[in-house]
C-alpha cells in the first residue's frame, strides 16, 4: 500500500514538472526543470526496485545531459513568448494516443503480479545460474556485461557515432553554403 502511495505521489510530481516545462519560456528554467524531472524519475526507479537504473539516470540523465543542455542554452538566445503552433491537431493526437495507451494498459497484467509472463521466461534461469557462472551477486551487471554483452557493445558504437556526429556538426562551417541567410540579408540591404 505504501509503495503505491509513494509511486502515485512521485508521478503526480512528474506531471506538475512537465506542465511547468510546457509553460515556461525561459530556456534556462526549462533546463533546470528537466534536471528535476530526471531526478524524480530516478526516485521512481528506486521505488520500483531498479537501483541500477536509478543510479544511471541520476548520473547520466540528470547529470551529463543537464550539463550539455546548460552549455547549449548559454549560447542560445532567451526564448520568446510565441503563440503555440499546431495546437489543435496535437491535442487530438495526444488524446487519441492516451486513449489507446489506457486501453492497452488495462489489458496488461497487474502491477507487481509475480505470475506475469514477463517473469516466467529466461529470467528465472538468469537469477538461478548467474551467481555460479560469474560470482557477482548483482544480476543486472551479469546480464549487461555477459549474457547481453553484444548489446552493450552495440550501445557503445551508437554513442561513438553520436559523438562523431556532434563533433562534425559543431566544427563544420556551414556558413559558406548557398542557403546562407546572413548573406541573403546583406544582399537585401
Amino acid at each position, binding site marked *: 500500500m505504501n509503495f503505491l502511495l509513494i509511486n502515485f505521489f512521485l*508521478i503526480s510530481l*512528474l506531471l506538475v514538472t*512537465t506542465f511547468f*516545462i510546457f509553460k515556461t519560456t525561459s530556456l534556462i528554467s526549462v533546463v533546470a526543470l*528537466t534536471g528535476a*524531472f*530526471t531526478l524524480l*524519475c530516478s526516485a*521512481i526507479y528506486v521505488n*520500483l*526496485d*531498479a*537501483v*541500477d*537504473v536509478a543510479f*544511471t539516470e541520476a548520473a547520466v*540523465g540528470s547529470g551529463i545531459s543537464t550539463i*550539455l543542455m546548460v552549455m547549449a542554452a548559454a549560447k*542560445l*538566445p532567451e526564448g520568446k513568448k*510565441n503563440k*503555440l*503552433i*499546431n*495546437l489543435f491537431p*496535437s*491535442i487530438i493526437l*495526444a*488524446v487519441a*494516443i492516451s486513449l489507446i495507451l*489506457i486501453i492497452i*494498459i488495462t489489458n496488461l497484467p497487474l502491477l*507487481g503480479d*509475480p505470475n506475469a509472463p*514477463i*517473469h516466467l521466461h529466461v529470467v528465472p534461469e*538468469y*537469477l538461478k545460474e548467474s*551467481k555460479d557462472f560469474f560470482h557477482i*551477486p*548483482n*544480476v*543486472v551487471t551479469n*546480464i549487461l556485461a555477459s549474457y547481453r554483452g553484444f*548489446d*552493450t557493445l552495440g*550501445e557503445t558504437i*551508437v*554513442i561513438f557515432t*553520436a559523438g562523431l*556526429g*556532434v563533433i562534425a*556538426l*559543431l566544427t563544420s562551417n*556551414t556558413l559558406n553554403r548557398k*542557403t*546562407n*541567410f*546572413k548573406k*541573403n540579408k546583406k544582399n537585401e540591404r
Partner: protein
Amino acid sequence: MVGGLFIIITSQNYLKKVVGLAIFQTAVFVFFVSLAKVLDGTAPILTKMANAYSNPLPHVLILTAIVVGVATSALGLALVLQIYKNYETIEEKEIESLELKSDK
C-alpha cells in the same frame, strides 16, 4: 500511468522539442521498469534474505536506452546550435518566414 505524460509532451511545439523528446523517452522508461516490478520483491542483487526479486531484464534494457537517449539528445542539441548559427533564431515560425523570403 504514463499515458497522462504524453498529452503535455506532444502539444509543445517550440524548439523545446529536444527537451520534449527527452521527457517522452523517460516516460517510456518508467513504464518499462514498472513492468519489471514484483510485489514483495527486492532489487535483483542476490542475497540470502530475499525470497523474490524484481525482473532484471527490463532494467538492463533501460540502462542501455538511457545512455543512448543522452547521446541522441546531445546530437539534437548540436543540430539546434547549428541552426541558430545559420538562422540567428530557433523559433520555428521565424525560420519558416525566413525560408519563404529567400525563395522569392
